[in-house]
Structures are given as C-alpha cells and as structure tokens.
C-alpha cells in the first residue's frame, strides 16, 4: 500500500513524493503542495476529516479524499 498524507499520524512530518496532476487542484499546487516539499499533519478534525496541514510553511486544510492522492515519504524523527 502506498504511503499518502492520509497515512500520517498527528505530528508526523513527511516529504511529498508524487501525485497525479489531473486530480489535484491547481490551487493546492500554488499553495505549496509540490514534490519535494515538507508536509506536517497538525490536526485532524473531530470526525476524522478534513486534515489540517502545514505544507511548505502554509497552514491549510484538505479533505481525506484529496490527501489520499498525495504520496509522501515519512521522515523518521
């Protein structure tokens, strides 16, 4: 199974590896969601969705279905 942002636990940091450009909105790319950038899971909303992330210094929230499309590599502390 591939590791995506959805696999992160609260407080985990990861590097974005790849995603299918067609399913990720351009706006998200512009906010810094690009291969090679850092992502950290800050909070999970009460019912498990959406996810509150720090991507490349930007604080933003996305839904799980989008998070599932973004492959990452978790950084071990």
């Amino acid at each position, binding site marked *: 199974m591939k590791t995506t942002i959805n696999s992160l636990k609260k407080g985990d940091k990861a590097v974005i590896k790849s995603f299918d*450009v*067609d*399913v990720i*909105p*351009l*706006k*998200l*790319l*512009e*906010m*810094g969601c*690009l*291969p090679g*950038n850092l992502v950290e899971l*800050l*909070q999970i*909303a*009460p*019912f*498990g*969705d*959406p996810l*509150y992330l720090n991507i*490349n*210094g*930007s*604080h*933003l*929230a*996305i*839904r799980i*279905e*989008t998070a599932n499309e973004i492959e990452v590599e978790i950084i071990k502390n």
Partner: protein
Amino acid sequence: MSSQNINVALIGNPNTGKTSVFNQLTGLNQQVGNYPGITVEKKIGFCKLTSNINADILDLPGTYSLNACSMDENLVIELMLNKKDKLFPDVVVVVSDVENLKRNLLLFTQIKDLEIPTILVINMADRMKYKGISLDIPYLETQLKTKIALISTRKNYGINELKDLIINYESLSVEPCLNASSIDEDYFNNLRKAFPNQLLYKLWLVITQDVNFQNLERKEVKNSFTKSHSDLKRLQQKETIKRYQFINDVLKKGLEINSKLAKDFGGKLDRVLTHKVWGYVIFFAILFVIFQAIFDWSKIPMDWIDSTFATLSNFASNSLPKGVMTNLISQGIIPGVGGILIFIPQIAFLFLFISILEESGYMSRVVFLMDKIMRKFGLSGKSVVPLISGTACAIPAIMATRNIENWKERLITILVTPFTTCSARLPVYAIIIALIIPDNPVFGVLNLQGLTLMFLYLLGFGMALFAAYILNKILKIDSKSFFVVEMPHYKLPMFKNVAINVIEKTKSFIFGAGKIILAISVVLWFLASYGLGDNFKNADQIIAARIENQSISKSDLSNKIAAFKLENSYIGIMGKTIEPAIAPLGYDWKIGVAIISSFAAREVFVGTLATIYSVGSSANNSTIKNKMGAEINPVTKNKIFNFATGISLLLFYAFAMQCASTLAITKKETNSWKWPLGQLVFMSGLAYLVALIAFQILK
C-alpha cells in the same frame, strides 16, 4: 501647479492584511460599489500623497495567483491585462505577510511578469521578532527587482515609506524576476514568433485562463496554441515549481528563521478551538452570544427608533398645513423611513460579529470543524459562513459562496441560504411575537418571547439543512469534490478594519434595501388613499346613512369612515381579491395587502401594516404594535392577530421566498433562471402549505 493622479492597485493573497493597508492609506475616503454587470465589490479609495500628487487606490479581491478559479479572481486578471481600462494601475502594490512570504511571493513573481511597475509590501512586520524572522531587505530588493516597504498596519509604521515608493513609481524596474518560459522552450518560442508584439506571459494567461481579453484575437491564440486540459495543467504545475524554485533560492539567503525564538501560540489555540468537544462548545457559545446581541441588546435602540418615528409622524401631521402633501409625509414617507432605520442596530451587530470572526482567523477553524458534518447534507464546511451571514442578509451570503470549489456544494448552499432567518424577517417576527406570545419568564432567566424567536431561527437553519439533504439526493450533478481552505494565523481584530467594515456593510444595506422600501411605502400610501367607484367617493354619506339611527361619538364616526374608505381604496380592492386564497391561513384582506406588498421585500410587511393602520385610524401617536393589537375582526369580534393567525404568519414568513433581490442574485450567481424560479416556487409553496396546516390545527 498641475496636479498628478496615480492609479494604484492593491493585490495580495487573502489574509495578508491587504485591506488594513488600504484602510491605512485611504482612511474613510472610500467608495464601495460594484463592477458593471457583476456583483464583485469594487473598493476605491483616495489618498493625498503630496500637495500636488494624488492617488486613486483600488483594493482588488484577494487572490492566491493569477490562475483564476472564481469571478473575483477573474476580475483581477482582466484588469491586469487590459491597459485601456481606466482603472489600469500605474503601479501595483503586492501585499504579503511576513509569516507566509514564500507563498505570497508566487503571486508577486506573476505580477512582475506582466512588466508593470510593482512594489512589494511585507506586512505584519511586528510579528517578526515573535516568530524569530529576520530579512535581508537590500538582497531581496535586488533579487526580486523591486522596492520593498516593510510595514506594520497594526503598530502603524512603514506606511509613509510606502507612500514615498508610490510617488517615485516611475523609477521602479519593470523587468520580470525569473524566466518562466523555460518550462517549455519550443512552445514559448513559437508563441513569441506568432505574436511578436505581445507580452509572453500575457499570451500564456490568455491561453490558460477563461477571461476577456481585448486587443488580441483570443480565438486565434487559442486555436493555434491549444493543448489538452491535462497538458496545460502539467505545464502550469511546471511553471509553479519553477517559480517556487526561484522563491526558495531567494529566501534561502534573504530570510532567516530562528526557530528557537519562534513562539507557537497559534498551535496551542488550535488544539482548543478545533478540539472535538471544546471546539463545538466554543462555537455554539459564540453563536449564542451573537443571537443574544441581535435579539436582546438591539431591542433598546430599536424601540427608541420606533417610538421616535411615531412621534415624528404625529408631529408632522399636527404642525404642517393640512393637505395631501402632509398626509404623504406623515403617513407614507416618515413611517417608510422609520421602517428602514429600525434595522440598523441588528444589522450592525451582525456585521460586527462576522467581521470580528473573520478578522481573527476563527472563521476558518469553524469551516474545518463543520466540514464533515455539513457534507452529510451535501454542503461544505465553507457553507457555514454563508449560512451564518444569511442571518444578516441572503445577498452577501450568496456572494460568500464563491469560495466553495465544488459546484454541487455551492449550488445547494445558494439554494438553501434564503431559509436562514435574515434580518428582514426580524421585524415581522418581532411584531407578531409581541402580539401573540406573552412576555413571561421561563425557568427564571429565559423569556418566552425570546425563546420563540430562537425557535424560529433554529427552524430556519433546520429547514436549510433539510432542504439541502433533499437537494443532495435529487440533484444529479457530477462535479469533482475538492476543498482547500487556508488556516490563517490568529490575529487580534483591528478596530479600524472592523469599524469600517461594519459602517460600509450597514450603509450599503440600508441604502440598497431602503430605496425599495421607501418607494413601496409611497406607492402604498397612494393606493391606500385613493380608490375607484362610488363607494370610495361617497364614503361619508354611505356611513352616515348606515348609522342613521345610532348615536356614536364624532371620533368613532370618522374612524368608521376611514376604515370604509380603506376597504374601498385600490389597495383594499387588491387585498379583497386575494382574500379567498388566504382566508384558510387565517388572514384578512389587510394582511393580504401586506403580503402582496412584501412580495418583493419581506421587511415591507411591517411598513405596509403601519401605513394601512395610519391611514385607517385617527390615533396617530400610538405605535404600530398597539394599532395592530387593537385590530378587531368586524364580524366575529375577535382579535385579528390571535394565536393561530400569528403562528400561521410566522411560519409563512419563515419559509416564503419574498425577496426580489435574492432571486436576482441567485440568477446572477447560477447564470440561469431555473434555480431562482425553483427557489420561488418551492419555498413559497412550502410556506403556504405549512401556514395552512398550522392555522387549521390551531384555530
């Protein structure tokens, strides 16, 4: 000495304090209007830079980039591409936030590619120490080929430096700061060859964006250089990566963050405010305070306005010379104006809270908290903002749906927002509740009237959610669901921003709605004061003949004549015509008149009754409420506004679609007559049905 005028455009990401910069530059010299044909708000301010240099400052809608995905963002691009537009800027000021500089610079590099003189404002400089940030301004200025103003609108410094930069805009470099066309050399070289006189980045925007573009045959560009949607997006991704590479390189040397010095207060606050229990508790507590303010705190100024206008009307009719004009003023215009001004306290409170919640950054946390729940109803977390704003007015609320990315979620939000109890319903509710619900305490602290009002608000929200749930099941729209919401850092709201926002919003509401209400009041007065046929003309004789053998006082006689005249006036005839249709709901022809006249704007209801009862009775100095409460059905001798009729009216107004402006805005935002007509038929049909059932059970 001739004076010079500079056109300045303020551009920036949302949450960078762009509007604070605008307010600092212009003070209260602002004009808020609409761009022709569309409902995007246009804010222009005026700033005197020196004794002979003035600046017109345009505050453009916040945007993350020049790749537009909403009407507001389209507007930014259209203006930036159209040199002939009279608003086209001589100089662009890009406002950025020192804590989000990396992301904010993306838009800056795009603007620079348009080769317009550009100043970079780095705002919120007061946060640098707190976050351990230090900047190498000269290095950044060289790399970004611009001049930088480091400012803090909160601590009030740097604005004069910005003004100096604006004055000297002609010395700014117009050279792009990176070469974005290297992402596909061949493609861009061909483009350059085909249109040698055009700016390359402009052409690229024309190809990728859906905007109007003058001076250039758009079809021609599109046909010969078109690519599949997927290929274009791949190129746009490459472009974005390219820009970020450049920004990262620049910031590596130009910006330093000492994480040891950085404090993370926001993170702690987030843990509480988005907590699975406390998050909701706090949200509902805030909602409670808002409603408390609207229902309770605003009562005092509203009662004061109501009685002031009753006195004023009385004063006018007594002191002005008797005649048609005096009647028009005392019975048409003064009650009409009063009916508008009475809204001010409630609207001001509502906009006060909404702008504090938005300024502080809390609204995004609400979106985050509510998204999963709202999605069960086919809505988005972002629908919460329109639904809350809807308690002020559905028009700004529907405009606030623009940031919902998913079309189906957005459409459903637009369709159900008018169910939330807007401030126009409030006077209708207030007066009917006061007439039929006793002013009794409940459990010591609460009040029965207040509880009824709260129930009506909950009913509105509940109906909005229920309708959304049904629409979600019925509508077959397949649209890609995506959702990105920025979580800005927490800020203490700035008094000046909140105050200006409250004043502007209240003003535009009062004037916008006011014109209609005033016009309708005057027309109503006319329709109620004149009539057709012998009955109206010979009212005096007819009444005199009827009571021939009875002895009644003089004032009773003139009341009877006035009531008979009203019944036979134009408006009386209209009310009588629809009476058979509304009698099963418990309404008489006077209420019928009020319903007809409030068809275009529900707040007219109270004004209409005020006008009707002012015309129909000599007791001018009593308030509208007293007049309505005293109204007796001539046949049954019961009060007209009894419990069953009152409840039926409350429910009718809770659901009926009686607002021409909302229908117009739905048409504009959905670009089709289908949806506003659906709203009208469905909501009003539901209102009739529910009111009918309620009256038949309760009577």
